[in-house]
């Protein structure tokens, strides 16, 4: 094995030690907007910018243990501010920056609530932060708000602060990706983060020659941990773009992976399907994805369809089948709990659907049998990570039984920041109650959905994702734009299924009844249940999250407002 492909270890006690040990000239981050507007910073240059941010923050009174909120666009200035705060022993928290597609009222609500909970000593925004949102930043009498430049300082060397963190000190706060209400701040120590990265690095067989590609936002654990902190600690090069630029030009991800020969990347499930649909076959020949060792699908339940769509679309671009990986990850565990086998990719199983639906057990079936459904594993637990599956009564369930996923590890959160009440609800006897459903089989975890989204129809467990996938299988319905949920019917004493789906073209609404009948038939055939109602809507009707996915609860509320007949009292 050549030296550049040697596995690397991380013998550091803190994240700041890891940054300090990085080779001066080694490229760290390339921020790409387009080919005429990109910049690369070496670790030495990045350290210099971080030191200068630390000096600036210190001059505003920031010190050990103080919380600092960073609201800046995706880029190196934000990363340097984050590292600069840690160099002082302060605790940075990145909040989402208002892009052009945010819903202003929703953004103001979130910003106000989250910043009030963080009670930060310093709030740092960039010099273009919109004035109309400033008043929504909650400031106490002790807080100060400053604007910083997005341009690196042109001053001479600024010495690093003479402060030594300890592994049990809080390193930063990352926010859990909640879909409803206020996001929760997950407080993490240097030790927890480093232990997670050691385990993840071991499972991914991180090499010094690895290069990361990312469009993921830095306020989300997948973007922050996998695509910023991991490269910082392992001294890897990361090629980054902003999430909004990626949304406008999704194929830029393939271009950058090809151009920079990136080896590691992480994406949510929907992005795989989106890219397969969006990039036309005649354009695919421009890309070379043979460098990818691991394109890890995580943050949503992993679906075979998304993996297959991407694998089929880009196999001609040199994509290796084993490069499509999976993981189960969450901010509360720093990041990954499980990771699929780096050499072979995730395992697939086919299970008997009727037993799964009615008895909540996974019984292996023949792949080609009529009643078989496919599940993709999220992999095995990382070292020092444990998963337990429990019933509604909190009793441990054996392998192959579906229940709530509980997690215990050496990289768990220290608690939700300033929310002892929420910490007590989620952490019990050392286990984190995830609210996700899944089962274990042969040591691998299969995630089936969110507990709160599960629809129970006459004792049968129906996952909204299954309904949505069937609806989107109709050619007139926009791929990925269907939402299913349960409506309780007190007369029947059970929930009923309601589906709303967006048409590809408005004109197709003229054939609503035919389309509805086809979707209904497909659902009955595949799942053995009949929806109470299917609503077909024009394009852009469904409410999407900032990540571009259908927002299930917001869409449900919109439908209930438009169709009050669904509210059975």
């Amino acid at each position, binding site marked *: 094995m050549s030296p550049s492909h040697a596995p690397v270890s991380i013998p550091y006690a803190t994240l700041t030690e890891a940054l300090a040990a990085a080779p001066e000239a080694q490229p760290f981050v390339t921020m790409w*907007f*387009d080919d*005429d*507007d990109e910049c690369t910073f070496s670790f030495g240059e990045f350290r210099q910018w971080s030191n200068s941010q630390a000096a600036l923050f210190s001059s505003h009174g920031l010190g050990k243990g103080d919380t600092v909120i960073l609201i800046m*666009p*995706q880029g190196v200035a934000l990363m340097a501010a984050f590292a600069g705060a840690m160099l002082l022993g302060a605790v940075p928290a990145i909040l989402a920056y*208002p*892009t*052009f*597609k*945010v*819903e*202003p009222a929703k953004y103001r609500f979130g910003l106000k609530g989250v910043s009030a909970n963080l009670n930060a000593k310093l709030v740092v925004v960039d010099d*273009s932060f*919109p004035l*109309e949102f400033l008043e929504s930043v909650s400031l106490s009498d002790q807080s100060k708000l400053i604007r910083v430049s997005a341009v690196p300082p042109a001053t001479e060397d600024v010495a690093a602060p003479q402060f030594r963190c300890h592994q049990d000190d809080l390193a930063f706060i990352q926010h859990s990706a909640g879909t409803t209400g206020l996001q929760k701040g997950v407080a993490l120590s240097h030790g927890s983060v480093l232990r997670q990265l050691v385990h993840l690095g071991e499972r991914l067989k991180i090499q010094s020659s690895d290069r990361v590609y990312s469009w993921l936002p830095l306020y989300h654990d997948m973007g922050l941990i996998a695509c910023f902190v991991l490269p910082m600690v392992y001294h890897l090069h990361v090629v980054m*773009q*902003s*999430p*909004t*630029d990626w*949304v*406008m030009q999704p194929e830029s991800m393939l271009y950058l992976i090809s151009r920079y020969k990136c080896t590691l990347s992480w994406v949510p499930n929907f992005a795989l399907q989106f890219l397969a649909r969006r990039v036309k076959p005649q354009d695919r020949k421009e890309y070379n994805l043979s460098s990818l060792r691991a394109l890890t699908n995580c943050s949503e339940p992993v679906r075979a369809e998304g993996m297959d769509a991407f694998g089929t679309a880009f196999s001609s671009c040199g994509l290796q089948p084993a490069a499509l990986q999976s993981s189960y990850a969450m901010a509360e565990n720093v990041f990954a709990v499980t990771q699929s086998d780096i050499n072979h990719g995730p395992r697939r199983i086919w299970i008997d659907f009727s037993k799964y639906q009615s008895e909540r057990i996974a019984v292996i079936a023949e792949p080609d049998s009529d009643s078989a459904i496919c599940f993709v594993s999220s992999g095995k637990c990382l070292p020092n990570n444990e998963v337990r599956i429990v019933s509604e009564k909190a009793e441990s369930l054996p392998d192959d039984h579906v229940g709530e996923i509980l997690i215990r590890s050496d990289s768990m959160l220290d608690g939700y920041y300033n929310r002892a009440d929420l910490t007590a609800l989620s952490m019990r006897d050392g286990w984190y109650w995830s609210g996700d459903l899944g089962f274990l089989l042969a040591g691998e975890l299969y995630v089936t959905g969110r507990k709160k989204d599960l629809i129970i129809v006459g004792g049968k467990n129906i996952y909204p994702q299954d309904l949505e996938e069937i609806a989107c299988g109709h050619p007139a319905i926009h791929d990925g734009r269907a939402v299913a949920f349960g409506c309780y019917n007190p007369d029947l004493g059970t929930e009923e299924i309601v589906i709303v789906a967006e048409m590809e073209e*408005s004109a197709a609404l003229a054939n609503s009844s035919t389309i509805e009948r086809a979707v209904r038939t497909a659902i009955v055939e595949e799942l053995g249940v009949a929806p109470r109602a299917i609503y077909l809507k*024009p*394009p*852009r009707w469904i*409410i*999407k999250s900032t990540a571009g996915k259908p927002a299930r609860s917001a869409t449900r509320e919109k439908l209930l407002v438009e169709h009050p007949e669904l509210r059975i009292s």
Partner: protein
Amino acid sequence: MADPADELIDYICTQIIRRPGIKLTADTPLVSSGLIDSFSLVDVLSKLEEVTAMRIPASKVQPKDMDTVSLMLTTAERLGKPRK
């Protein structure tokens, strides 16, 4: 060649709002008045790139830059680069 403002107005009326009788001018507030929701703006920005023949870096566009057709065209002029 059609006027970019007219093309955008026509697109927003027929493809985004889709309500008969809606009349827009280049200065009609769109998101702040509730006429369109912010999620539609990805499509509107794509259309803006098309009618101006510019590539606009989405990460540099702020909410207020997209509230009227006039503001959109100013944004394209300020941030856009000719498409290759």
